[in-house]
Each structure stands twice: as C-alpha cells, then as structure tokens.
C-alpha cells in the first residue's frame, strides 16, 4: 500500500469511529427501551428529529450553541417520551388484540405525526446550522512536521464524539449506581421478579421511555452541527438505531456501544470504497450478515467468551 492509500484508509477509519460514537448514543436509547418494554420504538428517529429542531430553533432565535441546547432538548424530550408512554403506549399494552405488534405499529403512527407536524411548522426545506466552527479541523502535520501522511480531525465531529462519550459514561453511572437505574435494569431482566421485589414496573417503563427519548434528543443536538436537517431526517436514524440494536444484541447496552462503533466504521468504509449512495446498503448488508452468522449480536459473543473461561 502506498502512503496515499494508507492515508485514505486511516482517515476513513477515524471518521467512521467518530460517526460510530454518535450512532452508539442513538442505539443506546433504543436498546434500553427495547430491554425494558420488549418493543421496538419506531418513532426513535423522529424523536431525534424533534431534538434537532429544538436545537435549531434555539440556535436561530437566540444563537444558543447546539451543544449547550442539550440542556434544553434532553429534558424536553424526556417529558415528551414520558407523555407518549403514559398516555399512548401504556393503554395499548392493556388492549387485547389479534396482533401483538400493535405497539410497534403505534410507534409508527407517532413517528408519522411528529414528522408531519415538523413539515407543517418548519416546511420541508433542508436546513443547516451555520456554527462558526463548522469547518474547523486539526491537522496532523501541524503537530508532527515530518509526518509522511496527512490526517485531519474535524472539530465539531470530535466535540460531538466526546459529548457522546460523556453522556454514555453518565448513563452507565446512572444504570449501575443509582436506585432508579438498578430498578430499570431489574425490570429489563425480569419484570415479574422486579414487581415482587417492590419495583414500580409501570413507573420504570415510563422513566425508561423518557430516558431513551432524552438520549436520542441529545444525540440530535450532537448531530446538528455536522448534519443537515429536514423533517423526514428521522426515518434513517430509526433504522440505524435498529440495526445497532440487532448488531449489539437485543437490550444489551454494552453491545449497543460496540455495535454503533462497528456500524460507523463499516458505513464509512462503504462510503469511501464503494460510493456515497451505497452507504445505507452497507448498513443493511452488515445487518443481514449479523442475523445469519451471529444472531445474538456482539453481546452473545462476549457472553460466550466469558463462559468459555
């Protein structure tokens, strides 16, 4: 391989990892909802779209930095998620119907309403957020004069990635150390047992849905400086989140992180070596491959390793 080829490969891997970090955050929100509720939230990307528009509105009206608007968007999405769970999804859980997938179809309905309302309010124009650091980047040659290859690290991508890492760490702390977090994990493991241990399962469901929404809302704010925004932007991220959930192993938080990183790198490789338009196909090729060869996802591989020892 020539230096130029190595340069392209390394650059692709770097941008893939940065993208993957953000994907992990989307996948995490979906996976904890999946773990506790046993349903897939197909309005996930649309909730992210709402988060993006919150940040966009704050930026264009008051020039609030998208990273700062996480503080507004995440709580707002938490409330929205709680309301959706409490008033729409919980009642459906009690309804007796032929198809058990009713709740999934319900989330599709919610997603449709959110995307359409966004179209009405904001029109279907593509929008970008012109933050002043949008094109800022660090170059390897600035730090290492004699470097044979040139690599760059985009400023907004890196900051978004670091924020994603911080939020993930915070989530880990919440789930591992706090009482509510432990109750959520208990509900995910066995809801009947949790109920017997005095966990308010209904409440945990509501909190989990809120938490998942808040996470993806935060992810929306992180995506805003580096991505464009339009009302139907959510659909692709719903699918991304779902692919990560399958890739990581259903309901596994650690798996979702690894899955997000793998997906980011893989998509980045597809985009570089096959073509920009094919990146979504790459996403689903890996999805199908996982289904066939590793049906339990990354989590099952980890578990097998641990048991083997």
């Amino acid at each position: 391989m020539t230096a130029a080829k190595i340069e392209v490969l390394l650059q692709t891997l770097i941008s893939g990892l940065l993208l993957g970090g953000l994907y992990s955050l989307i996948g995490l929100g979906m996976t904890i909802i999946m773990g506790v509720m046993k349903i897939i939230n197909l309005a996930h990307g649309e909730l992210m779209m709402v988060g993006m528009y919150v940040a966009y509105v704050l930026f264009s009206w008051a020039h609030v930095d998208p990273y700062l608007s996480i503080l507004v968007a995440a709580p707002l999405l938490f409330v929205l998620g709680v309301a959706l769970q409490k008033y729409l999804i919980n009642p459906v859980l009690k309804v007796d119907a032929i198809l058990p997938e009713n709740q999934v179809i319900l989330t599709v309905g919610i997603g449709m309403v959110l995307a359409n309302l966004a179209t009405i309010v904001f029109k279907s124009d593509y929008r970008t957020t012109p933050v002043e650091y949008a094109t800022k980047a660090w170059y390897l040659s600035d730090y290492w004069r004699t470097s044979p290859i040139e690599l760059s690290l985009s400023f907004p991508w890196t900051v978004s990635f670091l924020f994603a890492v911080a939020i993930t760490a915070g989530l880990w702390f919440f789930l591992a150390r706090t009482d509510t977090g432990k109750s959520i994990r208990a509900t995910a493991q066995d809801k009947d047992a949790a109920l017997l241990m005095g966990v308010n399962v209904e409440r945990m469901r509501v909190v989990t849905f809120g938490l998942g929404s808040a996470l993806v809302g935060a992810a929306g704010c992180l995506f805003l400086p580096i991505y464009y925004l339009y009302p139907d932007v959510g659909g692709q991220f719903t699918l991304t989140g779902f692919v990560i959930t399958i890739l990581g192993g259903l309901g596994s938080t650690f798996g979702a992180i690894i899955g997000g990183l793998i997906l980011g790198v893989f998509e980045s490789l597809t985009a570089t070596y096959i073509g920009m338009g094919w990146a979504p196909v790459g996403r689903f090729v890996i999805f199908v491959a996982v289904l066939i060869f590793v049906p339990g996802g990354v989590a099952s591989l980890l578990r097998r390793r641990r048991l083997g020892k």
Partner: protein
Amino acid sequence: MTRRLPPLVLALLAAVPAISLVPGVNANYWLHNFILVVMWSVIGMSWNLLSGYCGQVSFGHAAFFGIGAYTAGLLYAKLGLSAWWGLAAAVPVVGLAALVIGFVCLRLRGPFFALATIAVGVILRVVAENLTGFTGGDLGIMIRERTWVEKTWYYYIILALAAGTFWFVERVVASRLGYYFVAIREDQDAAESLGIDTTRYKTIALVLSAVLAGFAGAFYMNYMGYIDPKVVFALHDISVMAIMVVMVGGVATRWGPVVGAVIMILLAELIRTIPKIGVAHHTLFGVLLIVVIIFLPNGIVGDAPKLRRLLRPGRPS
C-alpha cells in the same frame, strides 16, 4: 348472506363505470379513485394474508409492490415488451425475491421480523436509486404509449385481479394451509410442537402474499405509466399505508382490507381536497392509526359488534 355477499359486492363494483352516465359528475376522477380503492384492497388482502392470518407483521410490503412494478417497467424499458406481461412475470420474479427475503427475515420473530422487512424495503429503494444503468435511478421508468386513454378497462382489470385475490385468499384461509397460518400466529412454539414446519409455512405465506402485492405493483406501473424508486418503495405511502388499510378495516377478516381501502383512499382524497389541511394528511392518518389501535384494535370489521353496541346505547345485545 355471507355466501351471497361477494358476488353482490362484485356486481355493484362492476357497475361503477356507469357513473359516467350521470350528468355533472367528473367520471374520470371518480373512476381513478375507485381504481385506487380496488388496487389498495388487493395490497391490503396481500398484507392480511401474511400479517393478519399468519401473524408475521410486515413493514415492507413496498418491497414486493416495487419489485412487481419494476418487473413490469423493465420488461417495457429493456425488452420492449408490453408492460402488461409484468403481471405474468411478477409471479416468478416476486416469488423468487420473497423466497430470498424470507430466508433471511423469517429467522426473526414478531417485532424483529417487522423491522427486518422495513430494512428490506429501504435496501431495495437504495439499490433501485443507485443502479442507474439498470433501473434508470431516480429518473424512474416511464411508459410513453398508454394502452387506453379511458380508465374503464384499467378498472375492470384491477377489479378482476381483486376478485381473484379475494377468492384465492378465501380458499387459502379455509384450507389446511390457512389453519396452519393461524396456528403459527397464535403460538409459534405450540404449532411447531404439533408438527407444523413453521419456517416452511411462514415462507409459503410470505411468497403468496408477496406475489399478490407484486400483481398490484405491476398493475400500478401499467396504470400510472410512471414509477421511480421513491414512489414504489415508499415506506409511509406504501408499506405503512398497507398496514393502515388492514388495521382500520380489520385484521384477519375477509372484508377488512376492502373496507379499509375504501375508507383510507376516500379519506386521503377528501383530506387532500381541503386546502390548508392537505399538508397534514400524514398527521391525520397517524392520529387515525393511534385511535384505531387504542379503541378498535381489531378494526372496523373485527370490532363491528363493539361498534354496534356503542351506536345503540341502552339496548343490550
């Protein structure tokens, strides 16, 4: 009554083109709507067979619809044949595609199957958009010479197709196959333990359902004369619409898809004609879907007794 109903409805529908005799009615416009209603009832019946009876909820019926449409379109664009051959060609092409899709997706259960089918729909759309040399990419396929200017023949063709589909689904559901499907829907493990090869019968349900949707797609190509990946592989406007048609009408009921198609298409048309509200039609559809799922989980036909009780308060039934 139940035995006489299908021929009666068919006879009534066959008389629809007579609206051109009524003065003051835009017959072309209404015929167009009726064609869409009948076409959607075919797609609905197809979805109902797989998801309603066999319980494998598909979010990707656009995939089969689109493959059918592209089969017809490519026959015309690449081979110079009449696009009507697409109706015949759809059987092997869509059937084969469904076998492959089923091989991958039917490993999954419940909501995961549903999601895998969404992925299939999206993959096909992206592939059709990117294979510009073969499918024409975003430019789509256009049939320059229409078979008929009048809509009457198109209407009778789709009506025949719908009648055939109705009869076919009826036969399948009443056969041993239909009982296997319902057994799989109710409890896959129990069905398996009773010796039903669930994977095999799920694949059969998928292939049958896919071919029916493919017919609708091939017809759509002929009728509209233009397709592109965003139209025929649309997630909301095809896949979710198929679900809504059946959810509103009634899951796993024989008349559900038909009732649902009438309501959804006429409603969509009504909403579109109202200025200002027209843009919000997805919102209204979404709200309708939410309301139906919460209050009429088995659809209008499935929950008809409940509806009747609601409409006649005070009288015990």
